C-alpha cells in the first residue's frame, strides 16, 4: 500500500508492508548541484548527526540509538543527475518481534525531528564550533580517500574529464580546498537556507498504523511550503571528437573506464530500450562485454557497463594488464559496434529483459531499494510505477534497441595505467 501526503514543504511517502522485521525511515533533501554548494552540503549531514541540543555529542546520540534496540542511523550523499541529494536513513526494529512494547518507530521519528530541527547550536546562529572543526577534518580525509580506491578514482577522473564544463563533474563530497572556508556560522546559515528551500521527501516503509504515523509526522516535522529549484531540461549533448586521457600510477592493474553519451534519461520514452541496450552490452554475465573481454579473451576479471540514468551517460569499466590496453579497447569498441548494428539474437533480447525484470523485483524486496526506485520519480518528475516498468520493458523490440544505439556516442576513454607501459 502506497500513500503520498503533502505536508507543507515535505512530501511524506508511506509504504505499508508486513515483509520486514524493521521499519525504515529515509529523509531526502535535494537541490541543483553546483561547484559552490557541494562541499558545504557534504559537511552538513555529518554535523547534524554529531550533536543535538538534547543529545549533545556522538556519544549520547549513539548510546540512545543502542537503547532503541540498535536503531540504525546514517547519512549519505548522492549525485542524481545534476542534483545533490542528502539522505538521512534510520531503521528500527519493529517491536512486535521483541519482548518489549517500546514504541520504536515513534521514537525514531521524534529523534529524526530532533536531528533535523534541533541541532546543537551556539548563540542561535552557529553550529557547535568543535563539532564543525572535527567534521571538517574527517571530510578532508573522506575526499582524499577517493584517490586510494583506484576503481572509484578512475570513475571520478573519467567524469571530471568527460563533463568538464558541466555541473555533473562536481564530486559529491566537494573539494578539498573549499573545506577550510566553512565556518560554524556560514554552515548554519546554509543549513537554514537548505531546510527552507530544498525539495524534501520522507519515506517510511514497514508495518505501522498510517494515521498515527501521519499525525506524528505532521506534529514533529513541519516545514514551510516552498518552490523547489529544478535543473532545466538537459539539451542533447553532441560529441565532436573522441577524447582520450591516459594517466600513470604505480599500480598492479590498469583501470580502463569509458564514458558514452546516451542522451536518454529516466522518464524518457526510450529509457526502457536503453536499459535493454545496456543489459545486452554490459549489464550481465551474458552481456557482450563479459563474454568477449573476460570469457573469450581472458583479459579481465570484471568488464561491465552501467547507466547514469539521470544524466544520460553509460559508463564502461574494466581492470586489465597495462600492456593489454589496445586489445581491450579494440574489443570494447567492436562490441559497441555490434550492438549498434543490432547483432544480437531474439533469445538474447528476451533473456536480457527477463534479467532486468528480475533485478527490479529483487531491488524492491529491500526497503531501501524500494525507496531508491521511488525516488527516481522525484528526481525526474515522472511517474513510472512498477507495473508500467514491467510493461514497458516487456514491450521493447529489437528495432527500439537499435534506435537507441543510434543516439549513443563514445565521448571519453580514460585509462589509469600501470607503470610498465
Amino acid at each position, binding site marked *: 500500500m502506497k500513500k503520498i501526503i503533502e505536508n507543507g514543504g515535505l512530501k511524506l511517502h508511506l509504504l505499508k508492508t508486513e515483509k520486514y522485521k524493521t521499519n525504515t525511515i529515509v529523509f531526502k533533501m535535494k537541490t541543483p548541484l553546483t561547484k559552490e554548494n557541494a562541499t558545504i552540503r557534504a559537511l552538513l549531514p555529518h554535523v547534524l548527526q554529531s550533536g543535538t541540543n538534547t543529545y549533545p555529542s*556522538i556519544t549520547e546520540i549513539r*548510546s540512545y540509538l*543502542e537503547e532503541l534496540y540498535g536503531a540504525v542511523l546514517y547519512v549519505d550523499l548522492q549525485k542524481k543527475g545534476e542534483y545533490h541529494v542528502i539522505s538521512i536513513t534510520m531503521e528500527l526494529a519493529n517491536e512486535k518481534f521483541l519482548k518489549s512494547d517500546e514504541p520504536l518507530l515513534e521514537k525514531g521519528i521524534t529523534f529524526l525531528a530532533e536531528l533535523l530541527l534541533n541541532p546543537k547550536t551556539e548563540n542561535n546562529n552557529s553550529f557547535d564550533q568543535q563539532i564543525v572543526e572535527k567534521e571538517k577534518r574527517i571530510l578532508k580525509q573522506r575526499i582524499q580517500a577517493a584517490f586510494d580506491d583506484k576503481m572509484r578514482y578512475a570513475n571520478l577522473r573519467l567524469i571530471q574529464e568527460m563533463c568538464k564544463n558541466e555541473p555533473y563533474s562536481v564530486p559529491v563530497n566537494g573539494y578539498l580546498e573549499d573545506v577550510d572556508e566553512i565556518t560554524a556560522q556560514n554552515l548554519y546559515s546554509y543549513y537554514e537556507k537548505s531546510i527552507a528551500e530544498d525539495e524534501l521527501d520522507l519515506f517510511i516503509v514497514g508495518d505501522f498504523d498510517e494515521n498515527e504515523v501521519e499525525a506524528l509526522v505532521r506534529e514533529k516535522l513541519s516545514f514551510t511550503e516552498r518552490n523547489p529549484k529544478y535543473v532545466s531540461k538537459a539539451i542533447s549533448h553532441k560529441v565532436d571528437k573522441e577524447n582520450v586521457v591516459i594517466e600513470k600510477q604505480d599500480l598492479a592493474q590498469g583501470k580502463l573506464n569509458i564514458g558514452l553519451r546516451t542522451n536518454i534519461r529516466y522518464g524518457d520514452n526510450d529509457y526502457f530500450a536503453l536499459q535493454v541496450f545496456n543489459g545486452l552490452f554490459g549489464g550481465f554475465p551474458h552481456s557482450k562485454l563479459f563474454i568477449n573481454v573476460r570469457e573469450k579473451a581472458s583479459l579481465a576479471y570484471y568488464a561491465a557497463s552501467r547507466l547514469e540514468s539521470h544524466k544520460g551517460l553509460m559508463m564502461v569499466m574494466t581492470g586489465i594488464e597495462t600492456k593489454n590496453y589496445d586489445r581491450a579497447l579494440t574489443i570494447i569498441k567492436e562490441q559497441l559496434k555490434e550492438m549498434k548494428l543490432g547483432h544480437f539474437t531474439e533469445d538474447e533480447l528476451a533473456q536480457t529483459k527477463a534479467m532486468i525484470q528480475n533485478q527490479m523485483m529483487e531491488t524492491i524486496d529491500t526497503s531501501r531499494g524500494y525507496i531508491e526506485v521511488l525516488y527516481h520519480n522525484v528526481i525526474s518528475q515522472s511517474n513510472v510505477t512498477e507495473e508500467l516498468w514491467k510493461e514497458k520493458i516487456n514491450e521493447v523490440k529489437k528495432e527500439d534497441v537499435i534506435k537507441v544505439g543510434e543516439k549513443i556516442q563514445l565521448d571519453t576513454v580514460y585509462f589509469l595505467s600501470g607503470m610498465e607501459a
Partner: protein
Amino acid sequence: MKRIEFKQLDEELYFEKLDNGLDVYCLPKRGFNKTFITFTTKYGSVDNHFMPLGSNAFIQVPDGIAHFLEHKMFEKEDGDVFQTFTKQGASANAFTSFTRTAYLFSATNNIYENLKTLIDMVQVPYFTEQTVEKEKGIIGQEIQMYNDNPDWRLYFGTIENMYHNHPVKIDIAGTIESIADITSELLYECYHTFYHPSNMLLFVVGPVDPKAIIDMIRKDQAARPFKDQPEIQRRFDDEPENVRENGKILKMNVQTPKCMVGMKGNFINQQGDEMLKTELAVQLLLDLLFSRSSNNYRDFYDQGLIDDTFSYDYTQEETFSFALVGGDTTDPDQLESVIKKVLLKAKTHENLSEQALERMKKNKIGSFLRALNSPEFIANQFTRYAFNEMDLFRVVPILEEITFDDVKNVASSLISEDRLTVCKILPKNE
C-alpha cells in the same frame, strides 16, 4: 521433514537430512519476490593439506585452489552455466572464504529449473587442461585487482603477521605464481574429496512451498549415484599462541595511511553453543570498547585519530580466531598505541561497564532482527553456523544469557600482549 517454529520472530524453518548425507533447509519468506538459494561445501582456502579420497597419504595443494575450483565449476562441456542461469532469469554467483565455498543464485521465476541447474553445476564437474589454463588469466586479474586494494592488503597483512603456520594467512585467491601449478587432475582430487553431499548444505529462502522444494531435492539426490564417503582427513600444523610478527609496514600508492591492530584469538576447537557464546561475548566486548557510543571512540575522534572508516570485527572458526581494529588515520603510530592501550586495559576490566553491556545486548538483538530481512544473511550465516554445529536461531536466547562476568572472562583470557600485532599502510613517497 522436520518443521521448527520461531514464534517471537514469526519464522519457520524446514529441515531434512537426505540419505546421501546432504542437509537441506528451507525458510519460507512470504511477501518477498525473490528466492535465494545457496549450495555450500565445508571447504575453503584453509583446507590445503588433506588426505585425498581413496588415498592414504596427505598432500599439500597449491595456494588458491579452492577458489580456482569455484571458478571452474561454472564451466561445463556444453558451455558456461552462467548463461543457463541468465536464460532462466536468475543471477548466479559464488564465493570462497577461509572455510567454505558457496554457489548461489537468486531469481523471481523458474525456481525449480534454476535449482536443478545449480545442483547439476555443483555435482557434475568438468575440468580440462585447456579451460584450466584459460582461467589463469582471469583469476590473475582478480588477484591484481586485490593487490591494488589497500584495505585488502591491510586485512591480509595483519592476518599474515599473526600466524606462523596456519593457512588462514594465505590469500584466498593465492598468487599468480601459485595458481600456475594448478592442473585439472588436482582440481578433480579436491573436488572428489570435498564435494560429497555429506560435506554440504543446501539452503532455500524465499516465497516457496517448503514441502515441494524438499521433495524435489530428495528425488533429485536419490537418482544420483553417490557412495558413502569416509570422514575427510584435514591436517593443520601446530600453531603457537603468540603472533609471528609484532608489526609490518606496507608502502602503497595511497594518500591516507591506514593502521590495523590484530589480536590473535586463543579460542579454538570450540563448536556449538560454546562457540556461539564465545563469539557473541567477544563481539560485545569489542562493542563496549570501540563502538561509537564508547568513551574510547570519543577520545580517538577528539584526538583526530580516526574517521568513518574506523571499524572492528571478530572472526572465529574451528581452527583459528582473530579480532581486528583500525582504519584510515593520519597518525598510524598513535592509533596503534591507543588501540593497544584500550585492549590491554580491558584485560583487567578497568574500562568495562556493566550498564553499557545491557545497552549493547539490546543493540545486538535489534541488529539480529534487522539481519533477518535479508535472505542472503539468513542463508549464508545459517550455513556458517551449521558447519560449526551452531544454530543461527539460538543467537537471541544466548545473547540474553550472557552476563557481565562472561564478558570479563573472555577479556581476561583473550587479551594478551604477545598476541597483538599491527599492520600499517603508508604512502610510497614518504
